[in-house]
C-alpha cells in the first residue's frame, strides 16, 4: 500500500481523507493556503505544507505548488477530494507524468465525461437513455428552432462546457427561443470561455437520482445503489438521501445496471457517480457523470457499510475490488443535511468566527466537519461547514433522528442553515417523499 498520500484539498473532505489514511496506516500530507494555517486538516495531518495565498487560484488550484509539495514531502499519491482539481484531466495527467498516483479515474475518463457531448455519446453507445435532443453544438437560432420543434417544447438550452446551472435556459415557446438562445451562449462564453450550447427536452418536476459506481483497474465495476438529491436550490444540493424513496426494486435494478454498463463502456475506474433525471412516469434520463467522490458519498456509506474513500485508495494502488455486486447489501435509510454558514432564509454566505460549537451525538448520527469552537470560517472558500448524516432502519425514523440531531446541534457566532433543515424535516411533502428538483422553489425558501 502507499506509505504517504498528499491531500490536495481542504475542509471536511480533506479531514475525511486523512481519517481514511490514518485507518489504513498511510502517512498524510496536508497542503494549505496561508489563510488555512489553523485549519483542522492542517493540524491533523502527519505533515502540512503551505502552498500559497488564500485565493484558491494561488493555492488549492495551483498545480505546480501542489506537485512540488508532493515531491518535497516524498508523497506517492495525491487525493484531490471534490471540487478544486478533482475533475481536472490535466492535473491527473501531470500527476502521472511526475510519477505520482492520482487517486481518481484516468485523465481520459475525466476528459470524456467532462465534455457533455462526448459523455452523452459514450453512454448512449452503452444503451443508457438520455433526454431527446442534440448531442452536438447548435450553431444557429434557426437550427435551434428546428430541433425544438422536433423534440417539442419545453426544451432546455445547456452549455456544452457547462455545469452548476450556468448557461442553462428553459424555453417554453418558439417566441421566447431567440432571446434565450442568445443569453445562453453569452453566459456560456462568460462562464466557460466557450459559447457552444446544445438543446434537449426539458423534463418537468423530475427527481435527481444518481448511482454510486466503484470500478477497479482490472475491469470490475459495481454499483452501491442510488441516492436521491432532489432537494436543491439553484442546482445546489442541500439534502441527500439513500435509497431513493420512490424507486421500485425492478426500476432500481434497471437504473443501477445502466450506470454500471456506462461505466464499463468507458473502462472507468475509481469512484464515480452517474446522475439521472427521473420523471413522474418513472422514465430516467442520463444527465452527467461526476468523475470524483461526491459531497454526499456518506449516505451511501451508511447504507452499504462500504468506506468509499478507502476503496478509492485501494483501487488507485491497483488492488482489485474487494466486493462483488452480490456482497453489497442495502441496510436501512440514510439522510445527509449540508450545513452551510449562510442565512437560513436568504442563503447569503455568513463567514465569521465560530463562538460555541457542540455537535449532536448518539446512535445513528455521523458528523463530517472541519470546524471547531473559535475557528474562523473564511470567506475565500465554500460555505459548507458541516455534514450531518443520520442512519436508521426506516426513512421515517431517519427523518425523526435528523430532526432531533439538528435540535442538538450548536454552532454559535455565525448564521447557519440548521434552521432551514429543521423546517424541511417537518415538511409534510418531504416526510411523504413527495419531492422533485423544483420542491424548494415552490416552497419559496
Amino acid at each position, binding site marked *: 500500500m502507499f506509505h504517504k498520500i498528499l491531500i490536495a484539498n481542504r475542509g471536511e473532505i480533506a479531514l475525511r481523507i486523512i481519517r481514511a489514511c490514518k485507518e489504513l496506516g498511510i502517512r498524510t500530507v496536508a497542503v*494549505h493556503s496561508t489563510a488555512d494555517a489553523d485549519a*483542522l486538516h492542517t493540524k491533523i495531518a*502527519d505533515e502540512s505544507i503551505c502552498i500559497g495565498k488564500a485565493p484558491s487560484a494561488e493555492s488549492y488550484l495551483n498545480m505546480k*505548488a501542489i506537485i*512540488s*509539495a508532493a*515531491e518535497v514531502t516524498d508523497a506517492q499519491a495525491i487525493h484531490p477530494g471534490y471540487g478544486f482539481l478533482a475533475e481536472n484531466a490535466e492535473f491527473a495527467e501531470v500527476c502521472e507524468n511526475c510519477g505520482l498516483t492520482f487517486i481518481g479515474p484516468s485523465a481520459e475518463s475525466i476528459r470524456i465525461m467532462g465534455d457533455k457531448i462526448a459523455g452523452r455519446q459514450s453512454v448512449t453507445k452503452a444503451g443508457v437513455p438520455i433526454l431527446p435532443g442534440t448531442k452536438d453544438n447548435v450553431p444557429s437560432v434557426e437550427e435551434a428552432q428546428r430541433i425544438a420543434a422536433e423534440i417539442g417544447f419545453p426544451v432546455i438550452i445547456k452549455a456544452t462546457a457547462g455545469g452548476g446551472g450556468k448557461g442553462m435556459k428553459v424555453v417554453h415557446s418558439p417566441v421566447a427561443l431567440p432571446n434565450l438562445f442568445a443569453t445562453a451562449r453569452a453566459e456560456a462564453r462568460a462562464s466557460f470561455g466557450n459559447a457552444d450550447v446544445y438543446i434537449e427536452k426539458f423534463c418537468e418536476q423530475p427527481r435527481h437520482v444518481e448511482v454510486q459506481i466503484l470500478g477497479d483497474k482490472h475491469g470490475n465495476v459495481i454499483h452501491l445503489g442510488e441516492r436521491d438529491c432532489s432537494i436543491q436550490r439553484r442546482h445546489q444540493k442541500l439534502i441527500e438521501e439513500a435509497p431513493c424513496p420512490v424507486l421500485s426494486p425492478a426500476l432500481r435494478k434497471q437504473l443501477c445496471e445502466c450506470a454500471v454498463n456506462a461505466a464499463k463502456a468507458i473502462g472507468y475506474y475509481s469512484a464515480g457517480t452517474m446522475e439521472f433525471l427521473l420523471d413522474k412516469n418513472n422514465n430516467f434520463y442520463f444527465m452527467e457523470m461526476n468523475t470524483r467522490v461526491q459531497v454526499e458519498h456518506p449516505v451511501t456509506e451508511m447504507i452499504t457499510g462500504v468506506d468509499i474513500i478507502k476503496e478509492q485508495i485501494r483501487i488507485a494502488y491497483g488492488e482489485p475490488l474487494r466486493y462483488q455486486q452480490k456482497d453489497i447489501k442495502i441496510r436501512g435509510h440514510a439522510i445527509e443535511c449540508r450545513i452551510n454558514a449562510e442565512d437560513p432564509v436568504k442563503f447569503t454566505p455568513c463567514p465569521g468566527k465560530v463562538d460555541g460549537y457542540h455537535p449532536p451525538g448518539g446512535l445513528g448520527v455521523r458528523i463530517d466537519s472541519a470546524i471547531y*469552537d473559535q475557528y474562523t470560517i473564511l470567506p475565500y472558500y465554500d460555505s459548507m461547514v458541516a455534514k450531518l448524516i443520520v442512519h436508521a432502519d426506516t426513512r421515517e425514523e431517519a427523518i425523526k433522528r435528523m430532526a432531533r440531531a439538528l435540535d442538538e446541534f450548536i454552532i454559535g457566532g455565525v448564521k447557519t442553515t440548521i434552521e432551514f433543515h429543521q423546517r424541511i424535516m417537518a415538511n409534510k411533502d418531504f416526510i411523504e417523499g413527495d419531492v422533485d428538483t423544483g420542491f424548494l422553489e415552490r416552497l419559496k425558501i
Partner: protein
Amino acid sequence: MDIKDIKALVKIITDSDISEFEMENEIERIHIRRGAEKEYVQVSAPTLTAAAPLPAAAPAAAPATAPAEAVDDGCETITSPIVGTFYRKSSPEADPYVEVGSTVEAGQTVCLVEAMKLFNEIEADYKCKIVEILKDDASPVEYGEPLFKVKRL
C-alpha cells in the same frame, strides 16, 4: 464621573478587546477588569494545540506571520515565494551564492528553490547583509517560509 459616563466607558471597553482598564486623577480612580471574553479566547487556544501537537504545526503557522517580515532585532527575512527544495549553490561543485556576512545588491540571486525540476532563482529585493541562513542546503521549504535573516543596508 457620573453614571452616564460610566455606561459609555463600559461600552467603549467591552466593544474593544481590552481586558483591563485603570484610570486615576486627583478626584477619582477607576479600575475595570474583564473576565469572560478573555477567558473564552484562552479556552479555545489550548484546544487547538491540544488537537495536534505536530512538528508540522509550527512551520505551517509561519507563513501566517511571515507578511510581517520585520524581526524584533531590526532584521528582516527573505522568504520563499514557492514550495520547493532550497539550494544554496547553482551546482554541487559551485560555491554558495551567499555566506553569512555577504553583502548582496538588490536583484542579486541569493539561492535557488527547485520546484518540478525547475530551478527558480531567488533574488534580494534590496541591498542587504546576510545575517543568518535559516535553512540547510537541499532542504524542503514551503510557501512564505523564511530562508535568510538579513539586515537592510
